[in-house]
C-alpha cells in the first residue's frame, strides 16, 4: 500500500515529463495522455482511500520513506511521504477536481496549438501539489510549495505573447517568493531549534520550546501562507493571475493551490496552538482578507476577476477558521473542500460563458445568456447558491460553521470576528448575485458594439479580438466542458450536507486535526439565522441595483470606494509606490555607484600612476649635457658620501 503513495505523485510527474520533452509528435495525443495520468492518479487516490477507510481510525496514517534527499551532518532531509486523513482529503480534492479540469480543458483549449504543453503544465502542477500535501517534512513541502508556484507561473503566463500575461505570471511568482522567505526561515528556525523539520517530531516537541520561538515560526508560516493563498498583504497577485486560461484559474487559483496556505496552517496547528500571538495574527489576516476580497469582488466588471476576489475572500474565511485553533481547523478544511467544488464550478461556468462569447470577459457585455447556455446557467446557478450559503447547499454548512466558530472565539475578539464573517457573508451574497444577474439576466448587452474605455483593464482581452467588433453567437459548450461542470455542481450541492451528516467530516479528520466544539455566546441557531438574514440582505441589495434597473454597458464612474475597489483597493499602487519605485531607484543608483565609485577607485589609482610616470618622464629631456650634470652631481654625492664615511 505505501508504495502507491509514491506512484500518486509519480503518475502526473511522468505525464509532465513525457508531454514537455515529447515534442511535437505528441501534439495529437498529448491531452489524452495528460488526462489519463491525472485520472490514474485519482484512481490511486481512491484505492488508497478505500484502504484507509478499511482501517482503524488510529492507524490510518501511512508513511513511505523513498530515499534520503539531502544528508549533511545533522541535516537529514528525506523524500518521505505521509498519508493521513488530512492529506487524503487534499489528494482526493486535487486529483478529483484536477481530473475534471483536465477533461474540461480538452474542449476549452481545443484551438490552441500549444495544448500539449498546457496539459504538461497541468500535470506538473498536479505532481507538485500532491508532493506538497503528501510530504512528511517541511523541506519537501517547500519543494512542492515552490513547484506549484512554478506551475502557476507557467500557466498564468501560458499566453506569453500577451505582455499582460507575462507580467502577471512574473508578479505571481515573485510575490509567492516573498512568502517563501517565510517558509524557508521557518524551516531554518525549526532546524536550529529541534534539529529536524519533519512533521511529527517538530509538532510533538513544539511544546518543549519557548513561546517566542513558536510565535516566530508561526508568523513565518503565516507569511508563507499569505503569499500562497493571496491573503493580505500579499494578495495582489491573484487578480492578475486571471490572465491565465480559465481552467487554470479554476484549478490552481480557486480549488487547490491557493488553499495550500490553509493546509500549511492546519498542518502546523500544534505550533499555532503553542503561539497565541501568531494565532491572533492569523485570524486578523483572515478577517481582513475576507472583507477585502469581498469588497474587491463587488467592483469588478471582469467576471473572472470578480470570482478571484470572491476566492480571496473565501480563503479569508478558511484562514480565519484555521486561526481559531481546534474549534476551527476542521471547518477550515471543510470549507476548503466545498469551496473547491463550487468555486471550480463557477470558474468553469465563467470559462464556458467566455467560450461562447468569444473570450469576452466584461460582464457589462453579457446579459440574458440563460437561454443560450442552459447547462452553464444551471451549474453556475447551483455554484452561486452554494457560495452565498443558500441553506441546504455545501457553502451553507461550511461557512455557517466557520461563522459560529468565529463567534465562539469568545470575548470582544469573537464578536469582531463573527461580525466580520457575517458582513462578509452579506457582501458575498451581494457580489455573487451581481455576477449572476449581469451575466445571465437582463437585456442582451452584447448585441451592440462596445465602447471600450482604455482605463478599464477588463476590456483588454476583448481588445485581443482586434479591430471591428463581431457580434458573438452565444452557444452551449461541448460535452467535454459541460460534464465536468455538472459533476462539480453535484459536489457543490451535496458535499456540504454529506460532510456535516453527523459531523462525519470532523470525526474523519479528528485523529490528525484536533477538534473541539466551540461554544458561541449565542445559540448556534441564532447565528445561522443571522447568516441567512445577511444573505438575504446581500441578495436584495444586489437585485435592487442590478436586477431592477438595466445595467449600463459602460461602467459608471462610481463612488470613491468603488473606484478604489476596481483598482484592487489600490494595493498595486501601494506596492508600486512603496516597493517598486524605490527599488528601481536603488538599483539604478547602485549601478551608477558600482561604475563610478567601486570601479572608479581602481581606475583612478591606475590613472594616478600613469600621470605620475608621465611627469617624471619630463626629466629625460634628451640633452646629453643635462644627463652629464646629473652624472657629475652623482659623482659629487659619491665623493661626499665617501668623505663622510671616512670622517665618521
Amino acid at each position: 500500500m505505501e508504495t502507491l503513495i509514491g506512484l500518486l505523485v509519480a503518475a502526473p510527474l511522468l505525464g509532465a515529463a513525457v508531454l514537455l520533452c515529447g515534442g511535437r509528435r505528441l501534439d495529437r495525443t498529448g491531452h489524452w495522455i495528460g488526462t489519463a495520468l491525472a485520472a490514474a492518479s485519482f484512481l490511486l487516490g481512491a484505492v488508497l482511500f478505500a484502504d484507509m477507510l478499511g482501517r482503524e481510525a488510529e492507524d490510518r496514517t501511512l508513511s513511505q520513506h523513498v530515499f534520503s534527499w539531502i544528508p549533511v551532518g545533522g541535516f537529514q532531509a528525506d523524500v518521505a511521504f505521509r498519508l493521513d486523513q488530512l492529506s487524503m482529503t487534499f489528494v482526493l480534492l486535487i486529483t478529483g477536481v484536477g481530473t475534471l479540469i483536465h477533461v474540461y480543458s480538452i474542449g476549452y483549449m481545443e484551438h490552441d496549438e500549444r495544448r500539449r504543453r498546457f496539459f504538461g503544465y497541468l500535470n506538473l502542477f498536479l505532481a507538485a501539489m500532491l508532493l506538497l500535501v503528501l510530504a512528511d517534512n517541511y523541506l519537501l513541502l517547500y519543494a512542492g510549495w515552490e513547484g506549484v508556484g512554478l506551475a502557476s507561473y507557467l500557466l498564468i503566463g501560458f499566453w506569453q505573447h500577451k505582455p499582460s500575461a507575462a507580467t502577471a505570471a512574473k508578479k505571481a511568482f515573485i510575490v509567492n517568493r516573498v512568502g517563501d522567505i517565510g517558509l524557508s526561515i521557518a524551516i531554518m528556525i525549526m532546524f536550529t531549534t529541534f534539529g529536524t523539520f519533519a512533521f511529527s517530531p517538530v509538532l510533538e516537541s513544539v511544546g518543549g520550546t519557548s513561546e517566542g520561538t513558536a510565535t516566530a515560526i508561526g508568523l513565518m508560516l503565516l507569511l508563507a501562507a499569505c503569499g500562497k493563498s493571496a491573503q493580505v498583504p500579499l494578495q495582489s497577485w491573484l487578480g492578475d493571475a486571471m490572465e491565465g486560461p480559465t481552467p487554470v484559474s479554476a484549478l490552481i487559483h480557486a480549488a487547490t493551490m491557493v488553499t495550500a496556505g490553509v493546509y500549511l496552517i492546519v498542518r502546523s496547528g500544534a505550533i499555532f496552538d503553542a503561539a497565541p500571538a501568531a494565532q491572533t495574527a492569523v485570524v486578523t489576516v483572515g478577517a481582513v482578507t475576507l472583507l477585502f476580497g469581498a469588497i474587491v469582488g463587488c467592483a469588478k466588471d471582469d467576471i473572472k476577476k470578480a470570482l478571484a476576489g470572491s476566492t480571496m475572500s473565501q480563503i479569508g474565511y478558511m484562514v480565519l477558521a484555521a486561526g481559531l485553533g481546534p474549534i476551527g481547523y476542521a471547518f477550515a478544511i471543510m470549507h476548503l473542500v466545498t469551496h473547491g467544488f463550487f468555486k471550480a464550478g463557477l470558474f468553469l461556468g465563467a470559462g464556458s460563458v467566455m467560450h461562447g462569447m468569444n473570450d469576452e470577459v466584461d460582464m457589462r457585455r453579457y446579459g440574458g445568456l440563460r437561454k443560450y447556455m442552459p447547462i452553464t446557467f444551471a451549474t453556475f446557478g447551483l455554484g452561486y447558491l452554494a457560495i452565498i450559503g443558500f441553506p441546504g447547499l455545501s457553502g451553507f454548512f461550511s461557512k455557517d460553521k466557520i461563522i459560529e466558530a468565529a463567534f465562539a472565539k469568545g470575548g470582544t475578539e469573537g464578536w469582531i470576528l463573527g461580525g466580520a464573517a457575517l458582513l462578509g457573508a452579506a457582501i458575498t451574497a451581494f457580489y455573487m448575485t451581481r455576477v449572476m444577474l449581469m451575466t445571465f439576466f437582463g437585456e442582451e448587452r452584447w448585441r451592440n458594439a462596445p465602447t471600450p474605455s482604455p482605463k478599464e483593464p477588463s476590456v483588454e482581452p476583448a481588445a485581443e479580438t482586434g479591430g471591428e467588433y463581431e457580434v458573438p453567437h452565444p452557444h452551449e459548450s461541448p460535452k467535454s466542458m459541460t460534464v465536468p461542470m455538472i459533476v462539480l455542481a453535484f459536489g457543490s450541492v451535496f458535499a456540504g450536507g454529506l460532510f456535516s451528516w453527523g459531523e462525519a467530516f470532523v470525526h474523519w479528520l479528528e485523529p490528525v486535526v484536533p477538534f473541539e466544539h466551540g461554544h458561541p455566546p449565542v445559540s448556534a441557531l441564532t447565528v445561522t439565522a443571522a447568516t441567512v438574514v445577511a444573505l438575504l440582505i446581500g441578495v436584495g441589495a444586489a437585485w435592487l441595483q442590478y436586477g431592477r434597473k438595466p445595467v449600463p454597458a459602460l461602467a459608471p464612474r462610481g463612488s470613491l470606494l468603488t473606484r478604489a475597489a476596481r483598482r484592487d483597493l489600490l494595493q498595486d499602487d501601494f506596492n508600486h509606490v512603496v516597493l517598486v519605485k524605490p527599488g528601481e531607484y536603488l538599483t539604478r543608483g547602485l549601478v551608477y555607484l558600482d561604475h563610478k565609485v567601486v570601479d572608479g577607485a581602481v581606475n583612478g589609482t591606475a590613472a594616478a600612476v600613469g600621470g605620475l610616470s608621465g611627469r617624471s618622464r619630463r626629466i629625460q629631456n634628451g640633452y646629453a649635457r643635462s644627463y652629464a650634470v646629473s652624472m657629475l652631481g652623482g659623482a659629487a654625492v659619491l665623493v661626499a658620501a665617501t668623505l663622510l664615511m671616512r670622517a665618521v
Partner: protein
Amino acid sequence: MNPVNYLYLAALLFTIGASGVLLRRNAIVVFMSVELMLNAANLALVAFSRLHGNLDGQIIAFFTMVVAAAEVVVGLAIIVTIFRSRHSASVDDASLMKL
C-alpha cells in the same frame, strides 16, 4: 714644496674640464674638455707614482692616454658623421633620446 699641490692642480683642472663639458654646446669643445679632465687625472696619477715611488701610476696614466687616443678618434669620427647628417656640431641638436 708640498706634493699635494699637484693634486690640487689636478683637481682644479678636472673641475674646470667638467664644467666645460657641462657648459659648452660645441661637441668638439666638449671633447676637449673631456681630454682636459683625462689629463688632470693623468697628472694626479703621475704625482702619485712619484709619491709612492713605483711606476704603476705612470702605467695607468699611459693606458689612460692610449684609451683617450682611441676615444678621441672614435668620438671625433662620430662628430663628423653627425655634422654631416645634421649640419651642426652642437650636442643639444642631437637630443633624440627623449621620447
